[in-house]
């Protein structure tokens, strides 16, 4: 057999049948999904109308995350009548179709892509499709995760399969050692800046190199999560002992003999040494610096110690127009130093960066300091489990003492579907994944960065380099 990439192996192992002569289109078996309250309702309605059951109810999990409030006292009520109806219908659907649900009062509730790995439902070799673009997160485990729309959720629920078009393959190799104070978020932001917001459209990425394998599993999740912001519809890291150790003992992970069998199989999950990728991208870890975005697309980013680029210097007229439009929306001028940008809000949260390591990292920056006057700063843990763990470590107190709000888990102001919203013109340092126009609230201005950089910005009242201004790594 010709040498294959890890991506090819996962697709081949899940191919029920080829749908065209060259095997580009296949009927792909999907191991599991996670459902949320806002992209699933119409899928269930479709099943109800056609009188179709769910093929394998135990291969789905529901968690309420997108529309729930995150105020510090947890309540069952949603933020508005629409959200209320979605949560109700979600509960009804999960009950009627036999799907386990983590509702807003459940102790395991949280953002879907934080919950799935932390309870051991994401395993190497799986294919997981879900109604949320950040399903790519699961690539950190050597599982192929990708986002789907509601029609495909319905297709999955009814058939356990999807009609799938094989992607091209891209290997992103990051060799070397990251400088102190440079984090997984900076690596993926540097990649997106390098290849562009559609640089990986039509591709599945495999991350490789010594700087990737040196990352924790949670750091790898951040990278795979945001790979979709370069257009990738799948991002993989070959699983290793660090991944197996992360999964071991989690409540839904395999145990005993099955565990041993699984690990033996998982050790085979890697690209063949002579596998050929359609595209190769190489980044040097040493030159990656802490990154922030200045525009309204995730590729409009730059190292914190630089200035806002000048559209007049951009030779490509389309890109120049995009830059001008972005700067007008962001209320920024070319040449301005990035660390001179003052902020109104600071948000630590999201499926990209609200796991326990993210909160520990941010707390290191915050400890013993205070949020700048006039800045409203929030921490929204990625899950109820993360929240409890952080509280057990006293991190809640560190944030509260510094003037941060310590809130309940949910997607919150990453996409502002609940009542956590930026006002028009408000500027936010955010550990999230999208700086689109209006993403965090109509007229709101988002600067993406790592959670530690958000923490430093909250304290300084402006964007700042954690290494220089705060002294923390």
């Amino acid at each position, binding site marked *: 057999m010709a040498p294959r990439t890890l991506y090819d192996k996962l697709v081949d192992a899940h191919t*029920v*049948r080829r749908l*065209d002569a060259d095997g*580009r*289109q296949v*009927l792909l*078996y999907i191991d599991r999904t996670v459902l949320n309250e*806002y*992209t699933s*309702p*119409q899928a269930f*309605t*479709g099943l109800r109308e*056609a009188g*179709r059951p769910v093929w*394998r109810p135990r291969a789905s999990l529901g968690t309420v995350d997108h*529309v729930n409030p995150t105020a510090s006292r947890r309540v069952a009520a949603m933020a508005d*009548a*629409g959200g209320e*109806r*979605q949560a109700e219908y979600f509960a009804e659907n999960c009950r009627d179709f036999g799907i386990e649900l983590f509702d807003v009062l459940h102790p395991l509730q949280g953002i879907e892509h934080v919950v799935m790995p932390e309870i051991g439902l994401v395993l190497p*070799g799986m294919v997981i499709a879900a109604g*949320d*673009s950040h399903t790519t997160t699961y690539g950190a485990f050597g599982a192929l995760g*990708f*986002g*789907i*729309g509601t*029609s*495909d959720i*319905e*297709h999955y629920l*009814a*058939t*356990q*399969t999807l*009609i799938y*078009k094989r*992607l091209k393959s891209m290997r992103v190799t990051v060799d070397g050692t990251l400088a102190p104070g440079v984090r997984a978020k900076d690596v993926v932001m540097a990649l997106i800046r390098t290849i562009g*917001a*559609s640089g990986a*459209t*039509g591709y599945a990425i495999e991350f490789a190199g010594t700087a990737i394998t040196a990352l924790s599993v949670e750091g790898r999740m951040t990278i795979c999560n945001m790979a979709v912001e370069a*257009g990738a*519809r799948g991002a993989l890291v070959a699983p290793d002992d660090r991944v197996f150790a992360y999964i071991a003992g989690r409540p839904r992970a*395999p145990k005993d003999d099955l565990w041993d*069998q*699984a690990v033996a199989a998982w050790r085979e999950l890697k690209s063949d040494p002579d596998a050929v990728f359609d595209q190769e991208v190489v980044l040097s870890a040493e030159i990656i610096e802490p990154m922030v975005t200045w525009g309204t*697309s995730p590729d409009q980013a730059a190292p914190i110690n630089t200035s806002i680029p000048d559209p007049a210097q951009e030779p490509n007229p*389309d*890109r120049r127009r*995009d830059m001008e*439009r972005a700067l007008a929306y962001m209320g920024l001028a070319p040449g301005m130093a990035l660390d001179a940008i003052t902020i109104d809000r600071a948000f630590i949260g999201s499926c990209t960066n609200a796991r326990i390591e993210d909160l520990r990292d941010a707390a290191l920056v915050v400890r013993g300091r205070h949020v700048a006057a006039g800045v409203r700063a929030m921490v929204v843990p990625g899950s109820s489990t993360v929240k409890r763990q952080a509280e057990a470590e006293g991190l809640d107190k560190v944030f509260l003492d510094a003037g941060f709000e310590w809130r309940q888990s949910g997607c919150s102001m990453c*996409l502002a*579907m609940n009542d956590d919203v930026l006002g028009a013109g408000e500027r936010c340092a955010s550990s999230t994944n999208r700086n*689109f*126009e*209006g*993403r965090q609230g*109509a007229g709101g201005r988002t600067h993406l960065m790592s959670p530690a950089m958000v923490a430093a910005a909250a304290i300084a009242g402006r964007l700042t380099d954690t290494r220089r201004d705060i002294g923390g790594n």
Partner: protein
Amino acid sequence: MQPFTIVSGIAAPLPASNIDTDVIMPKQFLKGVDRSGLSDGVFHDLRFGPLRDTFVLNKSPWQEARFLVVGPNFGCGSSREHAVWGLGQLGFRALIGTSFAGIFFDNCARNGMLAITLEAAALDTLTAIVSDPTTAALTIDLPAQTITAPGGLQLAFDIEPTRKESLILGLDAVGATLQERAAIQRFEQAYLQENPWLA
């Protein structure tokens, strides 16, 4: 699903890069449990915001547009299918661009929305043509895989045969896949036997 064969109508140019699904369908329109009522949400801030008078879909003849000629990476970001449902409810039948985000592209196919990719040079030509109000009417012939502009310019486009067939026939994908029930069951049984920790 509404079949797509030969459709004529006005095409509107929307050349900005990276128009994301938050812009196409803002969050306040995502609070339903059905697919209805989304036409007001489409490009809401552009159509109804302070710059509305400059937005192409508020100008004649493009307010009647049935096609959009879009910039690169259209539909990036969130997986929300509401973006495609809303475009359909506002009367759009096809989108023409150089590249579409993957999830959005699939969502189009599942809803009878034809997403056509052209080479950059061909798209530039088409954008210039439809930016002129007197030449903005196009005819898209999916069986023949052609776009025809006033004056006789004709552009050919590629589309995968399976996608083309399902658009032309307006197929119910779930129903079609369930015809394969036995094959899926066979596969699943063998797969779970081979990977017993997943059973």
